[in-house]
Every structure is written in structure tokens, then in C-alpha cells.
């Protein structure tokens, strides 16, 4: 939603939009509902060719951003994917790529990133835990170092694309600190339960670790010292998620207003009724506010600003709440047709629902905000 795109960014956006419109239009999204993975691997390879996977990969490995601000580049794609409720593991692949680019060793990057870049390999970020716990201090999965091995015990849930991922980046507690560990799919001592979600195409799953053993070289960054890395990946995930949510709400409001112009009741187009107009005005304020705060979050992540922590929570709380409500209001404005399968609105509701619920709900982020700004004690939450 950035108003000042560079020429490269504007071209990237237009290319992405045309690609998504032609390759995965809403009719295709509906077809993918009935598939296990929710997306087509060959299509993902094409997306990778367009640069969907390159933004956080260092140039030395063949990647690169458009503007030097990879998050601000990536949210362009996220927003377009939101506008068309597109399939594909865009968020986890890019969060894992960013995590390795920011904190991985040369060996880890060389091993993982080329595959992610080409789209041949996929990655999942196994972070959130059962019950929806996503704050680093809430983690209970343990990564214990035993000699030159690290041993994993615990459970991760709501892991996007875990069923198709070749690599898992797992967050875990190591003594007093937290670590991130790269775990290849199929590692003994790890069990995956594939799952579905309310979204048409986005699949999740659970991973249970019962003593999975990896070499210590599988740890990304310094053992026990990954709090800042996880926090930044979380901010990136929220920036991508907010951009996607905003894109969806923006598109839904667009076609709902169009519909409201065409639909006549009592001899007038329904968008001429003041109660409906005033609701649209409020939706417009919330949508524009959502764009403003999402943009600022993307910039804050790129610039590693101090306020990015609270801003990420502010953005998620605001966008997650209001954009779902905008789509919900679109359903009300559309009337009965809006609650049918044939109408596209439910595709948008579904995407907004899954985005609302993952990486912290708006309510959890509000709790976090209050805890952060409370002057007299450490945390309310």
C-alpha cells in the first residue's frame, strides 16, 4: 500500500498482479480447496522465477531485493496475494529465508537458500505452540545441547505448509534462552500431523518432537540467544500478514461498492442509502488506517526500528480486527448472496480469519501492548 513505490517496485507489483490473476484466479483457488496441499508445485516454481522467493536471499546466492528494503518489497507481493486470496507458502518460505539470511552461517545459507530461491524446496517456520502461544517467553519446546548434538522435545502447532516443507526452522527453549534449529523433513524423532484450516488453500499442521537429534551445526545463530532473531522474524511475519489482510479487505470493499451501485432496491441503488454509506465511510477510515500502519510496520522492520516491537502488535491488533470487520460489513451490504458459496466474499472472510488467528490474535496483541506500555509493572499479560 506504499504510496511511493520505486519504478522497480511498481513494475514488480504489476507483474505479480497479472501473474496471480492469470495463473491462480479465484476459480483456481476454488479448485485448490479440494486438494491436499492447497497449491501446485509447478506454479510455485513460476512464482519463484518472478522473485516471490528471492527478496531476503543474499545476492551472493542469487537472490536480492528490489529496493534494498526487502520487507517493503515483500509486502507488495503479500498485498497482491491478499487481493486474490492466492495460494502458496509465501509467508513461511520468506520468513525462514530471512531468518537464515539474517542469522544463518554461510554453510546453512548455502545448503538451504538455493532450493527455496528456485521454489524446488519449501520451508516452514515451526514457532507457535498448542494453545496459540507465540511470544518467545511462552515457548516450552526444548532444544537441549548434548555434546555436539541438539535434542528436541515438545510440540509445535498451526505450522503453515509443514506438510510439504523440506526444512523446518524450529524455535525452542535452551536453558534460560531460546534457540532456532533447522530440522530436515523426515528426521527421526519428529512426527508431523497434517491439517487443514478455514482458508481455501492454506494448510497447516502440528509437529511433535520426541528426542529428534540434530548436529549443533543445525542451530541458527548462537544457541540460547535467538530472542531478537525470533522477534524480528515475528515482525516480518506480521508485516506480511497485515499486508495480505489489507489487500483482501481493499479488494472486497471495491467489489462490494461496485455491486452496491448496481443493485436497485426501492427504486434506488443500495449504496445511496445513508446508513449504508456511513458504514462505508467508517470502513474507508479503517482501511486507510490499516494501510498506513501496515506500511509503517514494513518500513520499521527494514529499518530495525526500536518501535517495531510495539508497532507490530499495534498493526496486527488494528488490521486483524478492522479488516475482518470490513469484510464482514461487505457481507451485510451484499445481503443474502454474500453468505452463499457461489459469491467470492467467503474466500476473503476465510483468509482474514486465518490471518487474524495466527501469529497472535488482535486480543493477544492488545494484551501485549498494555503490558509493554504499563509504566509501573513489567507486564499485565
Amino acid at each position, binding site marked *: 500500500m506504499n504510496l511511493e513505490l520505486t519504478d522497480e517496485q511498481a513494475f514488480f507489483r504489476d507483474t505479480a498482479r497479472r501473474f496471480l490473476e492469470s495463473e491462480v484466479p479465484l476459480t483456481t483457488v476454488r479448485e485448490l480447496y479440494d486438494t491436499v496441499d492447497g497449491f501446485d508445485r509447478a506454479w510455485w516454481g513460476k512464482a519463484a522465477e518472478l522473485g516471490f522467493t528471492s527478496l531476503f536471499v543474499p545476492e551472493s546466492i542469487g537472490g536480492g531485493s528490489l529496493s534494498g528494503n526487502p520487507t517493503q518489497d515483500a509486502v507488495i507481493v503479500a498485498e497482491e496475494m491478499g487481493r486474490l486470496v492466492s495460494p502458496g507458502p509465501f509467508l513461511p518460505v520468506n520468513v525462514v529465508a530471512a531468518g537464515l539470511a539474517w542469522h544463518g552461517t554461510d554453510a546453512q545459507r548455502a545448503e538451504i537458500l538455493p532450493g527455496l530461491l528456485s521454489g524446488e524446496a519449501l520451508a516452514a517456520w515451526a514457532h507457535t505452540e498448542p494453545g496459540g502461544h507465540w511470544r518467545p517467553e511462552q515457548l516450552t519446546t526444548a532444544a537441549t545441547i548434548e555434546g555436539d548434538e541438539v535434542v528436541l522435545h515438545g510440540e509445535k502447532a498451526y505450522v503453515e505448509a509443514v506438510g510439504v516443507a523440506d526444512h523446518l526452522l524450529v524455535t525452542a527453549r535452551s536453558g534460560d534462552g531460546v534457540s532456532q534449529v533447522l530440522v530436515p523433513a523426515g528426521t527421526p524423532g519428529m512426527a508431523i500431523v497434517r491439517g487443514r484450516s*478455514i482458508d481455501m488453500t492454506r494448510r497447516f499442521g502440528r509437529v511433535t518432537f520426541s528426542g529428534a537429534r540434530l548436529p549443533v551445526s543445525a542451530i541458527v545463530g548462537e544457541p540460547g540467544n535467538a530472542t531478537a532473531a525470533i522477534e524480528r522474524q515475528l515482525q516480518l511475519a506480521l508485516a506480511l500478514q497485515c499486508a495480505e489482510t489489507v489487500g483482501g479487505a481493499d479488494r472486497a470493499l471495491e467489489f462490494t461498492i461496485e455491486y452496491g451501485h448496481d443493485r436497485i432496491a426501492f427504486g434506488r441503488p443500495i449504496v445511496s442509502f445513508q446508513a449504508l454509506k456511513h458504514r462505508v465511510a467508517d470502513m474507508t477510515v479503517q482501511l486507510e488506517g490499516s494501510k498506513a500502519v501496515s506500511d509503517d510496520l514494513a518500513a520499521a522492520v527494514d529499518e530495525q526500528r526500536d518501535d517495531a516491537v510495539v508497532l507490530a502488535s499495534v498493526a496486527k491488533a488494528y488490521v486483524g480486527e478492522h479488516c475482518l470487520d470490513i469484510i464482514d460489513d461487505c457481507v451485510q451490504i451484499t445481503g443474502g448472496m454474500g453468505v452463499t458459496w457461489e459469491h467470492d466474499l467467503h474466500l476473503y472472510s476465510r483468509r482474514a480469519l486465518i490471518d487474524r488467528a495466527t501469529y497472535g490474535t488482535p486480543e493477544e496483541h492488545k494484551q501485549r501492548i498494555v503490558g509493554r506500555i504499563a509504566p509501573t509493572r513489567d507486564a499485565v499479560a
Partner: protein
Amino acid sequence: MRLPEMGDHDTLESLDAFEARARAWIAATLPSLDDEPVESRELQRLLFDHGFAGIAFPKEYGGGGCTLQHQKVFFEAAAALCRQVPTTNHVSIGMLAPTILDHGSHEAKLRFLPPLLRGDEVWIQLLSEPRGGSDMAGAITSLKGDGDTYLLTGAKMWSTGAHLADYGLCLCRSDWDVPKHQGLSMIAVPLRNTVGVTIEHIRAADGTRASFCQEFFDDVRVPRSNLIGEENQGWAVAQALLVHERNAVANIGYGYLTGNARPASITPDLSVPDLVATASHRGIDGVLAGPLADAYIASVVGPLLSARISAGIRLGTHKGPWGSLSKLHGAVSAVETARTTLAVGGPDGVVWDGDEVRLDNAGTRWLGIRGNTLAGGSNEMQRNIITERLLGLPREPSSDRELPFSEVLRRATAR
């Protein structure tokens, strides 16, 4: 509208005597809620055979010949005794039957009411059309006289249970050259095995086959005697139907058929205490205390509001479509509670194990929640009704009330 309270007061059974008789019969006859569920049609016939179907309807039309208070006493007694009552009759008996009673000819009532009250014939309403439901008087389904029958052509939508119905009471346009409210008629259309009638299920946003249908009519022949109300007087009939619908949704008046004063729609799938427990388990009962309390408050205030309106209608302090208040309160609360349920569930409300689609989650319920605020008259229509018809505020300016309907159509499509 006929007030059953005005009936034969001297021959009317006292409420106390009725209650005693009803309780005894219920205790002796109706299956317990703990028993195997008995089909509604069968239960309805049981009631009918003992004079407890359509308690407030005249006896000559198959009813009980009593009043709405007697009806309320009966269903409260059944609820207090934890007995099964028919659950699928809100539409037929709560909405259609009183409309027929209000506006049908004596012959129509004799023909249609007894099998309806007995549960043998199921009725639905055919009001909304695919292009939208709020402007009901803008119906374009056409009814043309052809000898001593009519020909019906057009489409209706959002008809709950049309696939199971025997008759639909259909709002259609019988005169296109008068203002829109003056050219409508209401006619009873046989739906089973009728030439020219096609009924299709609508697929709901959650992917399931919805309980509501779309019906297509292609030169369907209907006897003139099936008219309810006079030709071109259909709008008054539709208005009566809407009042009964709102009452049935609010579980008041003729629509008081369950002994549960709470409209079914605001009963959350998870009870509020369970929501509190889940929120507490997830550590978010603090931040959600307000919304959780609101959900509980709505579940208390909703029934009290319905009861107040019900009493007001009985006492005459509340005149007009006050059921709209209960409908609106219930619909708004249902969405609020669904939103809170989403918040409480977090990812567990939208993600699950396995490769199969699952429907028993907060996210899926959210996809259908707007049914509450659209079906049976949208929130916006209720707000219009409340302000224009209860409070006497000015109507919305509209250009289509005085013009011939054909001219309204011409102008609207010219835009």
C-alpha cells in the same frame, strides 16, 4: 388482525384448568427429552389429535379454540416437564397458519388449515427473489390469470426448507401498471410434483448444502381458489406474514412454540461459561472479560426483552411490530458472540488436524453468522421498521412508491 383473546369468553377454558389438563396430558403422552427423538411430524399429529395443535386457532379450522396465553402455558409446561415438542413447525404453524387465518377466505381456511395444523402439509413462504430480499414489494415473479387458473412465472430464493414443503405462499405481481404495492397478490403454490416447479438447494458459504433453496416457476398452473387475500391485495397479506415471522423468530405470539423464551439464533454453540473456561485456559480471559461478559449479558437481556415485548403486546402497551426489537437484538448479539468466540478460540477455531474439511469450529460458524442479520428481514430493515412504524419517524425518500411499477423498472434499468 384477529385477536384470539376476543373469542368466546364464556366458553373458554380458564388458564388454570387448561394448565392442569395440559400438564397431565403432556406428562402422560409426550416423550421425554431424554428419550429417543421422535419426528416432529409425528409429534405434531399427536398434538393435533388431542386438540393441542394450533391452540389459539378456531376449532372449526382444526385448532384448539383457545388463546395465545393458553398456547404459552402449554409449551411452558412441556418445557418444565422436559418433554419433546415438534421443532420444525415455526414456519408452518408460527408464521403461515396465522397469516392464512388473518387473510384467507373461509373456504381457504377450511381447506388449508387442518392438514397444516395436523402436520400433514408443510408450508413455507416464498417472498424474497434472487435480486434481493429487502425490497420485497419490488417482486417481479409474475401471476397471470388464465381462465379459472393462474400462470405463475419467475424465481424465489432464500426459502427455508422448500425441498421439504408441500405449499409455498408466494408473493407475485399480478398488475404491473399500478404502483408497486398495489399490484401484488399472494397465492398458495403446491410444490411437490408440480409441473413447472424446480427447487434447488443453495450452497452456503461454509460449503454445505444450505437449508434454504431457490425455486424456479415456469408457467405453473395454480387454481384461483389458492389466492390468500384478494387479487392485488397481496401486500397486506405479506405484511401480516412478516409480523408473524418476526414474532416466530422472537418466539412470541403465535410463534411461541418451544417453551424456550430465547430465540434459537442467539444460543451460542459454546455456552458462555465454556467460553470463559477456554479463555482462561489460554490466558486471555482478562483481555476478553468485557466481550465475555457482554455475551453473557446478551443471553440474559435477550429473553427478558422478548418477555417484556410479549407482555406489552398482550397488555396493549406495545402496539405494532415490536418483535423487530427482539429480532434486531438477537441478530446483533449473535454476531457479537460469534466474534468473541473467534477471539477465544484463536488458532484452534480455524485450524484443525487432518485433510478433511471440518465444520465444528468458530471460523465456520463465522462464515454463516450473517444469516442472523439478513434472513427474515435484515438488520437494516428492522431498523427502518422500528423507527418508521414504531417511533413514527419519516420514511426514507423513495421515488418508487407512486409510479406505476413498470415505470419504476424502466427507470432503474436506465441508470
